[in-house]
């Protein structure tokens, strides 16, 4: 595949703000926003669909072909936002593009505005609107009512439609009117946008970074004594009195009262408290006998819990920093980064314990 080394210029060539985009173009963008996830992938998530939705506006705003190319290229950055609220981000970004703001600022604003919308959108749509409408209409459907799916579709889409068109127009208007006060302090604004952008990427690393090394290395066994207490008749209690064992060598399940020198054993009860083994005469012909049972349990060393005590989300942080290093210092292309992740993922999952008999290997993931 052709390598697409392209450096996005810091500023557009044509810095004259473009006239306002007409309503028809905004509407076209709203309709295209329905295809936001058309090229969804794990590298840049919705970026392909985002660019597809932005194209009508970008064409209007950038009459210079080089600027259009630069704008299209950086509009393919990683983006993951809520499909139903995306027009809000589109309106803001379009207003920035129209005013030929520095490309880096546009990129920072886009990721900062887009990322937090996911939670809001999920709460509004998937956790509120869908459960309520689907809950009512599925019950109607189970009763055999054919209108049910129609009601579901109509309610759902009326809400979405209003949302998409409303947000697009509102955000675009807000962006274009706020832009004047912003451009007079452009440098500070760019800096502020980068601060928020870097902050949000740090937050996303934790929020979306689920990668963890779930390797458990068997680390021998541990021996213990579990205390059990029974109440038996005095005669039967006699049978317990001389149960002497060697706690270091006895097999799991062996019962004992004293060690080989005749000293009472100390065992751990169900709550983990240490109790002495021994026989207590209850005075009514019965005795309470506390004896120890030898336990042997496997111990394994969990890489995940050790890493978590150092720092939760250490693995996602390390991977992001590694990739940053490769991209920033080693001129890695995105595709090389993806292939690297694929290799790490598959290598980490190889069943070496089955293939090579490496017993401690349980797979990284």
């Amino acid at each position, binding site marked *: 595949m052709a390598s697409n080394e392209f450096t996005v210029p810091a500023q557009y060539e044509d810095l004259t703000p473009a006239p306002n985009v007409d309503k028809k173009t905004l509407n076209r963008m709203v309709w295209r926003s329905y295809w936001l996830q058309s*090229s969804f992938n794990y*590298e840049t998530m919705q970026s392909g669909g985002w660019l597809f939705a932005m194209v009508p506006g970008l064409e209007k705003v950038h009459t210079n072909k080089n600027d259009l190319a630069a704008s299209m290229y950086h*509009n*393919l950055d990683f983006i993951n936002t809520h499909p139903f609220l995306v027009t809000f981000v589109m309106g803001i970004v379009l207003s920035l593009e129209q005013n030929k703001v520095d490309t880096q600022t546009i990129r920072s604003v886009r990721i900062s505005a887009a990322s937090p919308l996911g939670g809001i959108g999920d709460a509004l749509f998937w956790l509120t609107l869908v459960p309520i409408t689907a809950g009512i209409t599925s019950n109607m459907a*189970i009763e055999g009512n054919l209108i049910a799916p129609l009601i579901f579709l109509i309610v759902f889409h009326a809400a979405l439609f209003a949302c998409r068109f409303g947000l697009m127009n509102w955000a675009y208007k807000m962006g274009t009117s706020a832009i004047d006060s912003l451009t007079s302090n452009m440098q500070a604004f760019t800096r502020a946008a980068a601060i928020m952008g870097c*902050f949000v990427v*740090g937050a996303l690393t934790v929020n979306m970074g689920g990668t963890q090394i779930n390797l458990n290395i068997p680390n021998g066994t541990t021996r213990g004594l579990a205390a059990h207490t029974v109440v038996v008749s005095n005669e039967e209690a006699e049978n317990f009195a001389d149960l002497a064992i060697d706690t270091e060598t006895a097999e799991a399940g062996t019962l004992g009262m004293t060690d080989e020198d005749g000293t009472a054993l100390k065992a751990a009860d169900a709550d983990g408290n240490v109790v002495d083994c021994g026989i207590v005469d209850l005075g009514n012909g019965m005795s309470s006998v506390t004896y120890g049972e030898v336990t042997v349990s496997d111990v394994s060393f969990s890489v995940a819990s050790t890493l978590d005590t150092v720092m939760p989300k250490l693995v996602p942080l390390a991977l992001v920093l590694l990739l940053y290093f490769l991209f920033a210092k080693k001129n890695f292309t995105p595709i090389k980064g993806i292939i690297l992740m694929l290799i790490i993922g598959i290598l980490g999952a190889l069943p070496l314990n089955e293939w090579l008999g490496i017993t401690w290997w349980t797979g990284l993931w």
Partner: protein
Amino acid sequence: MEANFLQIALVFLVTFVAAIDQFDFTESLYQPIVTGPIIGAILGDVQTGLVVGGTYQLMTIGNMPIGGAQPPNAVIGGIMAAVFACTLEMDPNVAVATAIPFALLGQYGVTLFFTLRAPLMESFRAAAVKADTKAITKLTVISEVILGLIFAFIVTLFFIGGLTAGQAVVDMVPKWLNNGLSAAGGMMKFVGFAILLKIMMSRDMWAFFLLGFGLTTIVHGIPSLAKPELLIMAMIGFGLAFWDFQQQTELKGAAFDGGDMSDGI
């Protein structure tokens, strides 16, 4: 029941549309409550399809695609449940339960597909460099058609082959490879993050990346804050950015104001 050619073609078509719709366009036609009665109509039993669709829908309410997580695939699950109920005359609840392995298979398939689709972005970038807006449209269409075809082929195969064929496919992919691919899929987003960092990063900015990371690990450890986590972080981030903006602009203004003040005194 022997399916005739028209029925197979219609199931193929419905799945094709539903597969695309699950991520785009209406994001609701694919819901089992809609696909159930449609599949029912194709197989000659609208009522059964409707009831199965409603049953499956209730099951999926707690299983929404929230936070980018892939739930068991409702397109394959919903359609297969309706197929089972209508062709094998299964009870709706049994049909839904039988369809679950197929929904899980769909879930793995989607994860794998999203991982393998990442290289397509290179073609998008190539089109962007040439400012070729038509190519963006073309790539978008191609991307969607491939998704739709994969789903349609798989569901049609299941439709024709039935239960045994489904199990055979599930058994074909070894578990470790599945693990590895889904782990790799989970790591792909770091590529996107790292590219964003490369764009925005300067020496001053490391502080804010680390602040964002550190503060989020704290919020992440509090279960009751899991849902609004990113919104909380966005507020803190915005607060920092806004404060910095004011500092930067006021410093600039202070140089002038300072002179005025000393004159006044």
